[in-house]
């Protein structure tokens, strides 16, 4: 494993991890505040990408970077106001179900409006090409832009939550909603804003993730279960945990797809003879890159067995 491969993979992994964090942060915020697991969170991510595709074809990419998340956030807020709030009284399972139904609906609507195949949502000129070349490998500008936006978002969310009045109200409403309501704040509206804000963050991730990777109807499902893994591994409701877990899973996945070793080659390197007749050959012959898709889920299972509350979680339920 050369140094060059290591550096580039690390950078790719970090940029993918930060994209995951942009998604999981919104999910975590919504969850820790309202106790609602937004199953449709990655659907809003997909909507962000598609909106940005349409808007950027009219007014260009940079306005779309602002407008698309706003539109997605508005849709999220409307959904909270007219659908989620209505089922709130039935308990958590119907809340989860209603967002599950929404994810179905958004997927079908996206296919209805934009078609079933990939849309040509390209990078703007300023982000095309490599940022720098390390030995022979290039690191694209778009990935560094993902990192930049994610860091900016992280800092601004943190500042918003800790340094502003509305942030303090949100934090208070998180712990003691009745008390905050008694002090005269409109807690349902705060909930609506948080839900809309979380969706807007997902939309923002979609705007920059959509052209860095691919914009297609399957994009929601492909990251959907990964960010649930991130949230559980990091610890339910812990933003710092989500950050750590996002980076970890981003790095693990990026490194794993590039490693072409298997248990068999490992054992052979140790001097053992491993052939097709050896017991468990189907398992031994799998390369690390082949098992890459399941690594996050294996990680999830291991975490649940050895540390059920997650890396940085505090809740034991």
């Amino acid at each position, binding site marked *: 494993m050369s140094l060059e491969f290591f550096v580039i993979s690390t950078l790719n992994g970090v940029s993918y991890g930060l994209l995951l964090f942009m998604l999981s942060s919104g999910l975590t915020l919504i969850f820790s505040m309202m106790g609602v697991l937004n199953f449709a969170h990655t659907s809003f991510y997909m909507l962000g990408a598609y909106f940005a595709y349409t808007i950027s074809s009219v007014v260009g990419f940079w306005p779309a970077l602002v407008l698309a998340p706003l539109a997605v956030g508005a849709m999220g807020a409307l959904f909270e106001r007219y659908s989620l709030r209505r089922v709130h009284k039935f308990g958590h399972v119907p809340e989860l179900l209603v967002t599950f139904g929404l994810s179905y609906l958004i997927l079908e609507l996206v296919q209805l409006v934009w078609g079933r195949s990939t849309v040509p949502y390209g990078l703007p000129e300023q982000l095309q090409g490599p940022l720098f070349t390390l030995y022979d490998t290039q690191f694209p500008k778009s990935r560094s832009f993902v990192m930049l936006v994610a860091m900016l978002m992280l800092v601004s969310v943190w500042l918003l939550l800790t340094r502003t009045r509305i942030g303090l109200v949100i934090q208070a409403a998180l712990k003691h909603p009745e008390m905050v309501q008694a002090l005269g704040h409109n807690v349902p509206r705060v909930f609506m804003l948080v839900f809309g804000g979380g969706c807007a963050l997902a939309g923002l991730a979609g705007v920059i993730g959509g052209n860095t990777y691919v914009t297609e109807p399957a994009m929601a499902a492909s990251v959907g279960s990964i960010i649930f893994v991130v949230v559980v591994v990091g610890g339910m409701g812990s933003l710092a945990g989500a950050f750590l877990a996002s980076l970890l899973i981003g790095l693990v996945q990026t490194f794993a797809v590039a490693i072409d070793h298997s248990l068999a080659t490992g054992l052979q390197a140790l001097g053992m003879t491993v052939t097709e007749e050896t017991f468990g050959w*189907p398992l031994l012959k799998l390369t690390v890159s082949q098992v890459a898709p399941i690594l996050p*889920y294996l990680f999830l299972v291991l975490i649940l067995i050895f540390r059920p509350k997650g890396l940085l979680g505090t809740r034991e339920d």
Partner: protein
Amino acid sequence: MTTTTSTTTSYYRFKPWNVGRIIVWGLFALLLIVAPMLFKSSLALTMLSQIGYLIIICLSYNMLLGQGGMLSFGHAVYTGLGSFIAIHAMNLASKGSLPIPLVLIPLVGGVAGMLFAVLLGYVTTKKAGTTFAMITLGIGELVASMALMFPEFFGGEGGITTDRVYGGSFLGITFGPAIQVYYLIAAYCFVCTAAMFAFTGTPLGRILNAVRDNPERVEFIGYNTQRVRYFAFIIAGFFAGIGGGLTAINFEIITAADSVSVIRSGGYLLFTFLGGATFFFGPIIGAVLLVFASVLLSELSKAWLLYLGLVFLFMVMYAPGGVASLIMMNLRLAKFGKLRSLWPSYLGLAGTGLVAVLGAACMVEMTYHLQLNAALGPVMTFLGATLDATALSSWFGSIFVLLTGLGLFELCRRQFLQQWSRIQEEIEHQIKRGEAL
């Protein structure tokens, strides 16, 4: 104020036998026996067979969702793995290395489903509520992607095939013809339904309901909620595996991409909920709906998933008890003799609702037509009407129909709500008066 209201519901119960229950189960058995004689086409028979094992699967799912409050996104793992073990057992049996008659193959699937539930359920049931849902999703993805990694066992893209006709015929039964398979499925369906209903009355079934409603109290009276969930999960896995085994017998082919996929799990969840998770018989309705939707509705319209999503969303919002709860509400009205006065309102609601749906459906179908069949030209037929998907007039027409329908529906709905709450009040009043006597 004490809350010692005695619940004096009157069952039609004649000792020593519970006649009402015997009649209901007898009718269910009769329906299973008679159904293929009434609907003789091969399509109907296929659908009936599918309904048969989906009833088992949906009921086993509801053991988690309805009775245990566990929202699982990975139920297809247990049905799918049950199918795979069953199909391998069938292949071994036809080679002669495993002496198992076909009649017992579903049980093999069941035991397999149970073993996987023992293994995976240990991790899953460590948590409850929302976290449980996320973990089942993760496990579901894990198994689904693993299945594609081991083509030796799961058959890769092509899946595993088998031939259910092996061994000699017994009294002329070879399980070659579909009708014989249907009766095998029907027998299993009846037995499993009865067994799962019996489970609801066992101490474990009762405490499972308590764990759903108030886990903290259950801990206080000395039960380990995690273990209760685990046991229920294992039993649900067993019945899911039986359903999976019957699937393998029915189709004689199982593919990993379909049978253990998360989409399949989502389908079970969707229809169990639509049928009604709060009543035991709800999932049976759900299974019937699932087959009708996936066989008939998908023929009718390309946008059926969209309609399905909308129906599901409205169901969660307005009738979280599913179709079963709607039926039970109306039965209650009928019991008090109030149903007749509501008929005009129901008709009004249905009529105006249909108009609105028609308008919306026209627009959806036109959009789909433009998306998918653009090569065929803009003119299409929908429900006998010819629409030009590019003409403004058909769009304006649809919008007009939709708005008219919505407006009238809203009027009917308001009137209906008033009538509904008045009737409920009357019933409450009647019950109170009955108690006072």
